[in-house]
């Protein structure tokens, strides 16, 4: 072990108007709104580049036009960073993890070498979501991946995860990643889905079917096999109660088991900040209770993007901008036309959530909105 001479506590307590945690679409939009309003803004991300989940999205965007539909996901971050570069009141810290928020109002940051404390007047949490895992035998064997990880490997680093993949989950992520695997020359043995019907858009499913990939609904994975790494898996049919049916087990040969079974909002910092939280399955798990300006029960803390409930990139950009405008406004700063913009954004958000797939999200959002829509 090295001696710890490189690790240093930096006792400087840096003050800033707004700290934005996460530079995915939500955090980027929030930081830009703060920049435009003229407040000092610190944007923090654990990665070395902006974009969050977007960096792996080589496909063209669905969603609303004002939120860059038709643009490829990977192109969106630079649209923001180019604009942010023009604002001297914005500072960005890459490779920096926001690891704790304390009752004293201090936000703790760390990178490889330093431990830093920030005293933000407002904080916008846009930390995104993390992938869910599944419990089955040997699920810790090398070769068991999350779908997001597989996408990052392929689309960011140009590395394929293996030769033959079994995908678990037929939501849009499972379907899109399966198709991207095929495009990269990887075999997809099957898409396994516990529900009786396919979760994602049928356009994506149809592409897979044409490529000859079976989509096995009412099925689940029971075990991974292999000594050093995955060499196969046992799958089985499930009944209406999602219980595996004895006698239906079968073996699938594969060297990768890819889990695309949903996302869970990353809300640790919101818990630290004492925000009122609620378990809302429609939004992916525990989420903060918010008003329509994205403010949590802690008047200094806002949440945007997937951290406030798992949705998609367009709503992440809208909620991020709403949070940014509102946080700056609460400090007495506003860009010209901000009120009209805020009204427009709220209308956009309602539109994004109004489609047939938005039903579930809207129900979740109603659950996680403070009584009467505003904090007392």
């Amino acid at each position, binding site marked *: *072990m*090295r*001696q*710890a001479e490189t*690790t240093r*506590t930096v*006792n400087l307590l840096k003050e800033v108007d707004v700290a934005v945690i996460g530079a995915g679409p939500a955090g980027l939009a929030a930081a830009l709104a703060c920049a435009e309003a003229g407040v000092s803004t610190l944007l923090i991300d654990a990665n070395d580049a902006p974009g969050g989940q977007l960096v792996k999205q080589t496909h063209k965007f669905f969603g609303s036009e004002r939120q860059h539909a038709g643009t490829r996901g990977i192109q969106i971050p630079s649209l923001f960073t180019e604009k942010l570069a023009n604002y001297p009141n914005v500072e960005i810290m890459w490779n920096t993890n926001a*690891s*704790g928020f*304390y*009752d*004293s109002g*201090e936000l*703790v940051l760390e990178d490889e070498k330093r*431990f830093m*404390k920030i005293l933000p007047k407002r904080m916008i949490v846009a930390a995104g979501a993390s992938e869910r895992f599944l419990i089955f035998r040997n699920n810790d064997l090398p070769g068991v991946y999350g779908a997001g990880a597989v996408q990052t490997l392929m689309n960011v680093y140009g590395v394929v995860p293996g030769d033959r993949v079994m995908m678990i989950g037929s939501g849009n992520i499972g379907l899109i990643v399966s198709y991207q695997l095929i495009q990269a020359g990887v075999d997809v043995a099957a898409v396994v889905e516990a529900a009786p019907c396919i979760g994602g858009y049928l356009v994506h499913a149809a592409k897979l079917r044409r490529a000859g990939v079976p989509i096995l609904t009412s099925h689940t994975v029971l075990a991974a096999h292999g000594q050093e790494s995955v060499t196969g898996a046992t799958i089985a049919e499930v009944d209406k109660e999602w219980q595996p049916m004895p006698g239906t087990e079968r073996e699938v040969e594969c060297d990768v088991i890819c889990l695309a079974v949903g996302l869970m909002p990353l809300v640790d910092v919101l818990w630290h900040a004492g925000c009122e939280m609620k378990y809302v399955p429609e939004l992916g798990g525990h989420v903060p209770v918010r008003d329509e300006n994205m403010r949590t029960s802690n008047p200094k803390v806002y949440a945007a993007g997937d951290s406030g409930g798992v949705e998609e990139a367009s709503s992440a950009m809208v909620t991020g901008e709403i949070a940014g405008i509102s946080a700056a406004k609460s400090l007495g700063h506003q860009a010209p036309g901000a009120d009209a913009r805020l009204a427009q954004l709220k209308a956009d958000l309602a539109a994004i959530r109004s489609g047939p797939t938005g039903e579930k999200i809207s129900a979740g959002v109603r659950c996680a909105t403070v009584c009467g829509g505003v904090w007392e």
Partner: protein
Amino acid sequence: MNRKSADIVVIGGGVVGCATAFELARLGCKNVVLVERNTIASGSTGRCGAGVRQQFGTELNCVLAREAVRIFEHMDEYLDYEPGVEFRQSGYLMLAYSDQQWEQFQRNVELERSLDIDVKMLTPEGAREIVPFLDLEGMVGATFCQTDGHANPFHTAFAYAQAAKRLGAEILTHTSVMDIEVENNKIQAVVTDKGRIATSAVVNCAGAYSAKIAKMAGIDLPVWGERHQILITEPVEAMMGPMVISFHHDFYCQQTPHGSFIMGIGMPGEPKSFNIRSSVDFLEGMANTVMKILPPLGNLRVVRQWAGLYDMSPDAQPILGECPPIEGFYNANGFSGHGFMVSPIVGQAMAELIILGKSSVDISKLDAGRFERGELVFEPAVVG
């Protein structure tokens, strides 16, 4: 709640309450009910460092700890607990940083040896043979007891709770004690949010909340909560055997069987409270202290920090036994930061006292009456 009456109600599902319920059932008490407002080990027990040491400065504490260690050594069989409580006897290394402290340590060792506890006296260099990366600056000497160690506090509490259940005790979780009915100085019933349990005896094992429970029976108990913080690092290869502790720095640190380092320091000026929120001052103070004493640990990432309550008493010693004038009201609290290590013997002693009228280890000096009598117990070896 089906239960309408009990011979004895144990309040609190920490390690002390669970051990007491088990020992009561083991002595043949068929109708024991343990009431816990949250889940087993959700209080201080599940938040503690779980170190077990026999190096103390009073005979009573040495004997209690020694007897507890003897139970810990065979606990998996004793409680028939298959997962195991993970008791490891990797020792306690206690560091002295002044001549005065070193003299006290030497007196302690003399006492410990007279009580059959095998403790070594070491030079700073000798201490370094046990922990090779120990920084020796300012250190005068150290003592080491190989049979000290640590266990898993969750498993220990679960093991006692499950064994108690097998012997017929009933464990009610998510049940809060709201009141205690007393008539003519005799316990009548324990009232919970899920119903009333008629009983003539209560054991107050509510940790830092023990004064609130006592108040329900009309007793002023001098026990209060004091926040103590702790953190754990990422796991790494096994590199440190013993718990390292320094009273001078108010510091302790231990590598768990899983490989992560768990550590705490006392924070000066901590007020009486039930606050269990974490502070950034602790994180910084902890990091600076551990890097001074065990420098390579500065390379490790902190995975989590949390806080728990010490159930403090005026002399930082436990309060054990019946509590006059209320007949049938027993205390097992006030552990002041070392309740986990003595819990096995405390459970036994309490059960013996309640069922047989006398315990095999004499705990009479630790009764609640000592504060009025002015007979406080002075223990020179405590760490925050």
